[in-house]
């Protein structure tokens, strides 16, 4: 008995968490099942992704790009993976009701790691030609449509998490908006985590916008059970010529959640992209956002808010790559950190040699409310073209004492004055939301969150 224990110990010390030995074993053992429950198109690059993961492992904070994210703790947990696509006995359409009043969205769910297949009558009104559904199903029914897009960005990245996703993701959300079709209402995608055991979800979302198309996507992350959840999601978005795409990501999960999300966007000529990444409540979050501006006259707006307290950790790693001339980009991230929360921000702005006349601006502002809160920011410019206007600014500070005094001297209580200032601080990010109903709702949620009240959506069971 003792000998076995010793052996087990020595194995544990030999393999480090970041090597992901358990997952490598799992993949080798269940390779067949993983593939048989997915689409052939998705399986094409699966082994290559797995090979890449094997050589890279999970990213540690020794890597420059993961300097401010420590995944050791969440990735040392033994998670269940739903490789055999077992049905989860829950109907999110019944359990979950989005409480954004008047949003009137087309509503879809990804339950853990798979697209939830129930047909909702609200979604019948989709314009002709628009395809929304399960990635693995559509990859089988319309392989020609996906062939030029699936994995075209994700497989080129030398990133351990993205490679891991490429090896294990079997399904996800798919949206195709054909040329010149404009969606009249926002599409809402709700990622719900529901499990009785510690669970890891890998899903791959693919979004394709044709020439002149227009779509708004609202992605919400929610957790339902009090177990440890980890999600590792990759979203690829291809925005066609003259298309307009808006991406809102709203995270409201419980403190035991680890959310690793990779959003990869490619913009073609004269397209317009807005991405707004809002983290209201979470456990450990790592958002990687890479926008590849691959056409002239594009416009990009990337912004986000982080409200974190207790032991929450949020790291937004953003990268905007200007490969073509005459484009504009603007980046704005704001953090409010309390208690022992840890914030991380990297804003990488890359302007290639030929991307003349680029105008790229970046701002990161942070407020620390307590001594124990930590903020690490790295606004980084890499510029190889000379005729450009680029700037970045970053500040870390506190609430303005003069402003506080001004309000206090006019009879506003200290708590209220603080709240007003914090709210004003986040307001310019919220103003970038172009869906009015959502804007009002986020304003309300942010205010509630800043008041320290639970900001859970109705229907979401536990946010603590």
């Amino acid at each position, binding site marked *: 008995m003792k000998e076995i224990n010793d052996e087990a110990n020595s194995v544990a010390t030999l393999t480090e968490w970041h090597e992901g030995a358990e997952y490598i074993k799992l993949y080798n053992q269940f390779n067949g099942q993983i593939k048989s429950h997915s689409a052939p198109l998705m399986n094409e690059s699966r082994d290559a992704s797995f090979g890449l993961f094997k050589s890279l492992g999970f990213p540690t904070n020794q890597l420059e790009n993961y300097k401010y994210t420590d995944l050791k703790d969440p990735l040392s947990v033994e998670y269940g993976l739903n490789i055999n696509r077992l049905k989860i006995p829950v109907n999110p359409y019944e359990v979950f009701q989005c409480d954004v009043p008047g949003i009137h969205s087309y509503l879809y769910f990804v339950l853990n790691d798979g697209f939830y297949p129930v047909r909702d009558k609200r979604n019948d009104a989709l314009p002709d030609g628009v395809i929304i559904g399960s990635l693995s199903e559509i990859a089988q029914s319309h392989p020609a449509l996906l062939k030029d897009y699936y994995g075209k960005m994700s497989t080129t990245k030398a990133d351990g998490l993205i490679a891991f996703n490429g090896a294990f993701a079997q399904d996800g959300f798919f949206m195709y908006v054909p040329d010149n079709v404009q969606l009249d209402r926002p599409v809402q995608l709700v990622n719900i985590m529901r499990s009785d055991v510690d669970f890891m979800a890998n899903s791959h979302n693919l979004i394709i916008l044709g020439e002149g198309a227009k779509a708004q996507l609202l992605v919400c992350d929610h957790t339902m059970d009090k177990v440890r959840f980890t999600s590792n999601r990759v979203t690829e978005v291809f925005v066609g010529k003259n298309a307009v795409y808006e991406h809102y990501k709203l995270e409201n999960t419980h403190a035991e959640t680890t959310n690793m999300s990779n959003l990869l966007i490619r913009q073609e000529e004269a397209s317009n992209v807005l991405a707004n990444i809002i983290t209201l409540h979470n456990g450990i979050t790592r958002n990687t956002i890479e926008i590849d501006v691959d056409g002239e006259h594009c416009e990009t707006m990337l912004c986000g808010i982080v409200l974190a307290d207790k032991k929450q950790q949020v790291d937004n790693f953003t990268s905007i790559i200007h490969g073509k001339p005459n484009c504009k980009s603007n980046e704005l991230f704001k953090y409010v950190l309390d208690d022992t929360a840890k914030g991380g921000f990297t804003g990488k702005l890359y302007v290639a040699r030929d991307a003349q006349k680029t105008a790229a601006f970046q701002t990161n502002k942070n407020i620390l409310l307590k001594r124990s809160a930590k903020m690490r920011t790295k606004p980084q410019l890499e*510029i190889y073209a000379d005729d450009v206007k680029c*700037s970045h*600014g970053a500040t*870390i*500070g506190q609430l303005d004492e003069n402003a506080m005094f001004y309000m206090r001297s006019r009879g506003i209580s200290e708590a209220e004055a603080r709240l007003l200032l914090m709210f004003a601080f986040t307001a310019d990010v919220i103003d970038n939301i172009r869906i009015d109903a959502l804007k009002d709702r986020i304003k309300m949620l942010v205010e509630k969150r800043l008041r320290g009240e639970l900001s859970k959506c109705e229907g979401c069971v536990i946010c603590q």
Partner: protein
Amino acid sequence: MAEDILHEVTQTDYKYGFTTDIETDIIPVGLNEDVVRLISAKKKEPEWMLEYRLKAYRHWTTMKMPEWAHLKIPEIDYQSISYYAAPRKNAPKSLDEVDPELLNTFNKLGIPLEEQMALSGIAVDAVMDSVSVKTTFKETLAEKGIIFCSFSEAVEHHPDLIQKYMSSVVPVTDNFFAALNSAVFSDGSFVYIPKGVRCPMELSTYFRINAVNTGQFERTLIVADEDSYVSYLEGCTAPTRDENQLHAAIVEIVVHKNAEVKYSTVQNWYPGDKDGRGGVYNFVTKRGICKGENSKLSWTQVETGSAITWKYPSCILQGDNSSAEFYSVAVTNHHQQADTGTKMIHLGKNTRSHILSKGISAGLSNNSYRGLVRVNPKADNARNFSQCDSLLLGDKCGAHTFPYMEVNNETAIVEHEATTSKISEDQIFYCNQRGISTEDAVGLIVNGYAKEVLNKLPMEFAVEAQKLLQITLEGSVG
């Protein structure tokens, strides 16, 4: 039109390229424990110094060269470098004994020692290759109790001070190049300003790399005791060489209570020719500590030379109310690469730091600013403002900014600002319209752009720095 001028600029050869024929005493290439022992023996060092070197060497062998910098560095074979070179005729008693060739060299550089001694009142500790050849005004300084001598002399005459302060700021294990330097350092300068003394003159050292394939590993240690003040100047030029020369120096500064140290550098080592051949690799560890309350440290640097510059003059703000400044102009042309900036580590209460960095890139060069501002949990009311601007001349060069901000205290205020721009047509047009040629206009604008930093240099240096800026961007500028 501007392109033509920039083209002209890139054709200009290094003005200060010449070699002085002085016999040098070189030990065979390669690095091992015996070489470390040999260096120590040649310098007649005491046992503790040898132990120190060996410890550093042993640690160095366990380290790998770091790769995170935004630089393309050809592989360096540390076994093909000679680690010691000293001019034969060392320790001259007076100016007459100094090799006339050496004096000529300084004259060509426009730094006539006699004139400086007579007119400007600067004490010059000239380092020709590795051993201190000539030290001036020592007596004047000695009256005030100021110690300003070569590092080897300090090891001999002031072992207590050296043992107390050496490596107190940059430990031997700090980084790859610091360990290498600690193992094989040749010589350098030592400055000690006693309590309450205000150094009456600017202390200055001219470093010069002169022998083929000789790495230079200087070591500078400056200690400012309570209530003292010193302004220290370091300037460099190097002759044309085809093979790369490695330069890995360490500068340590200790600032005690109420003291102030101002450290200024003008660096103009050989940057390689216009095709990127040759040039000096300048991998320097510079760090100061504001140890006592109300202490102040100021770094000013003008970097125009070297094929590769990789250095971060840093400051640890340990004493309460201490402050630090970093002013930098870095100019890169042809195939030069620079990854430079600073680190401000706030430990004490009410500490302040200010960073102002101006990068100018031309030709095919790459110029990066990399700076860290860290506020530790106990550093209440820390304040930092950083500004780093980049100016691009030409469309084949790159300007990059990598600021890191790590704040662990809610009372801190940390701000960072950066811009990247080029000289606009409008600005040139405005000048042309008023009868200023395009060439003069570019010079005017570049000088104006760097002025904020150049103004921080001591008078004697500001003139040279402006000249260097002009020479580096020669043809159009100035």
